[in-house]
């Protein structure tokens, strides 16, 4: 079954800005789906329409087969939304915020209280449950948004940049929690600017740019399209020139660092053999950028150029 089905979705704002140009998208039940795109690409508009905060100009959105436009209440009952911006009442306590949210979804107060305690403990916020929420740190507020979105146990959880501005330790614990939720059967749609987050967590991906889907496939398939990878090699001793290796592009960034661009068809062994023959000792090696990031930049740039050309 499809958790989300988006058909020919268009949105033009009153000021004339075309945010979505007819998007088609499908997310299967149980999927962990990444929705990526640069700022202003249309991600937030799309999420706004799915969660009924934004009215679509044209097209239809279905959540588990129920149309958001035709049967809003039943569609909304299945969605949990973690918004990009903190949008709870900062003069209320986390426990009350979650219990009230449960009430809006018809969760009886006693059950909502139990769930509030469960999710606050799970997200390591229980000791702050009865503190005024404006006193929480940025990371705590983000976790509270997740706990609030889970209180009615939605079948589709939408996370709009949930880890923005969150330190790596908390980010990792949030990933763990979200993975756990997904394993338990909740479909997850994630938008993020941390592309390693999408690469590590998600199975399928859509990239949106200028209001259009420019890529929609599995993460594995997308990564297989990466024909050249760039590595940074740290050297033990300084060098003045780089050796020439057939089919591999080497550039000296500084006397202790080489940047190597290697087509997927070439073996890394070949690079290391050549370096060894030239008397160069490599102490460490890393990807220049995250693999998904590299593809993302290429896809978005390509789309940008196409748009510019078509405008020209």
């Amino acid at each position, binding site marked *: 079954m499809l958790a989300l089905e988006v058909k020919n979705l268009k949105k033009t*704002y009153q000021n004339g800005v075309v945010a979505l140009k007819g998007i088609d998208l499908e997310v299967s039940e149980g999927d962990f789906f990444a929705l990526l795109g640069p700022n202003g690409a249309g991600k937030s508009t799309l999420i*706004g329409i799915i*969660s*009924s*905060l*934004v*009215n679509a100009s044209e097209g239809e959105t279905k959540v*588990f087969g*129920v149309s958001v436009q035709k049967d*809003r*209440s*039943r569609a*909304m*009952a*299945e*969605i949990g*939304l973690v*918004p990009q*911006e903190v*949008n*709870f*009442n*900062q003069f209320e306590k986390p426990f*009350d915020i979650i219990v*009230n*949210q*449960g*009430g*809006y*979804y*018809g*969760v*009886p*107060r006693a059950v909502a209280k139990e769930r509030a305690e469960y999710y606050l403990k799970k997200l390591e916020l229980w000791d702050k449950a009865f503190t005024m929420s404006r006193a929480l740190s940025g990371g705590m507020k983000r976790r509270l948004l997740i706990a*609030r979105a889970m209180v*009615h146990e939605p079948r589709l959880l939408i996370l709009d940049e949930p880890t923005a501005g969150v330190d790596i330790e908390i980010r990792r614990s949030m990933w763990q929690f979200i993975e756990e939720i997904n394993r338990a059967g909740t479909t997850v749609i994630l938008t993020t600017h941390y592309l390693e987050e999408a690469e590590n967590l998600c199975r399928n991906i859509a990239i949106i740019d200028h209001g259009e889907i420019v890529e929609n496939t599995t993460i594995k398939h997308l990564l297989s399209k990466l024909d050249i990878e760039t590595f940074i090699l740290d050297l033990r001793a300084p060098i003045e020139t780089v050796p020439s290796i057939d089919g591999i592009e080497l550039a000296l960034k500084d006397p202790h660092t080489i940047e190597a661009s290697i087509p997927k068809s070439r073996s890394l062994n070949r690079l290391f053999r050549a370096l060894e023959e030239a008397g160069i000792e490599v102490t460490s090696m890393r990807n220049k950028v995250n693999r998904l990031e590299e593809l993302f930049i290429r896809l978005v740039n390509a789309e940008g150029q196409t748009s510019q050309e078509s405008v020209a």
Partner: protein
Amino acid sequence: MSEKVSAKSFWIGYQTILIKEITRIVRIWAQTLIPPVITMTLYFVIFGAIIGRRVGEMGDMPYMEFIVPGLIMLTVITNSYGNVTSSFFGAKFGKHIEELLISPLPPWIILAGYISGAVVRALVVGVLVWLVASMFAGFQMHNIWVTLSILILTSVAFALGGFINGVYAQKFDDISIIPTFVLQPMTYLGGVFFSVSLLPGIWQQISLVNPIVYMVNAFRYGILGVSDVPLWVAYAIICGFGVVLFAICLSLLQRGVGLRT
């Protein structure tokens, strides 16, 4: 899926909004419950006890007794209006209105929750002011059912008016414009301090366009048994006023005016 969207789930949603509103009223009691009581006490002292003695009688009764229903009504109107305006606009301003907008609750439940909260505040404040008034003018009750029904209908009507203000308000200034420039003059000219029968010919006719005249007089009938207007006309006008405002509020919420993009 149907269990998540049912009459029971909507009832829980309504209760939640109401509990949240009452919690807010109690949490900020120094802003919501005490100021109207202090203001009305001053009104009773100045207009009732000090100036009232010189005024003598109004409508065959001591001036102090005459102004009690009008002052209670003044409190009910400003508090029911102000409660929804500030609460709803506050939720909009703080963006936590989105908690409700993305929920399965239909617009009429959201509206009912906010209106009920305002009615609760209006009733509590109304009772407190009535208790203060009783210290100056003694307890009087001609017809409790008329008194209660007019109190509730009036607070519902003005809460709906406050909701419309909250929907359109873009900044904090916007929530004080209507109460200051429209509501207050209408209330003061609505027969709170005088009987409209004292007005000269044409002004008497003009004052009958003001719906607050009917609310104040019907409420005065409930407490004192006197009114400048027929009771059934007052009920018809208050109910009609309420129905029109309810329809406007519902339409605004359904279309998401000022709320959904």
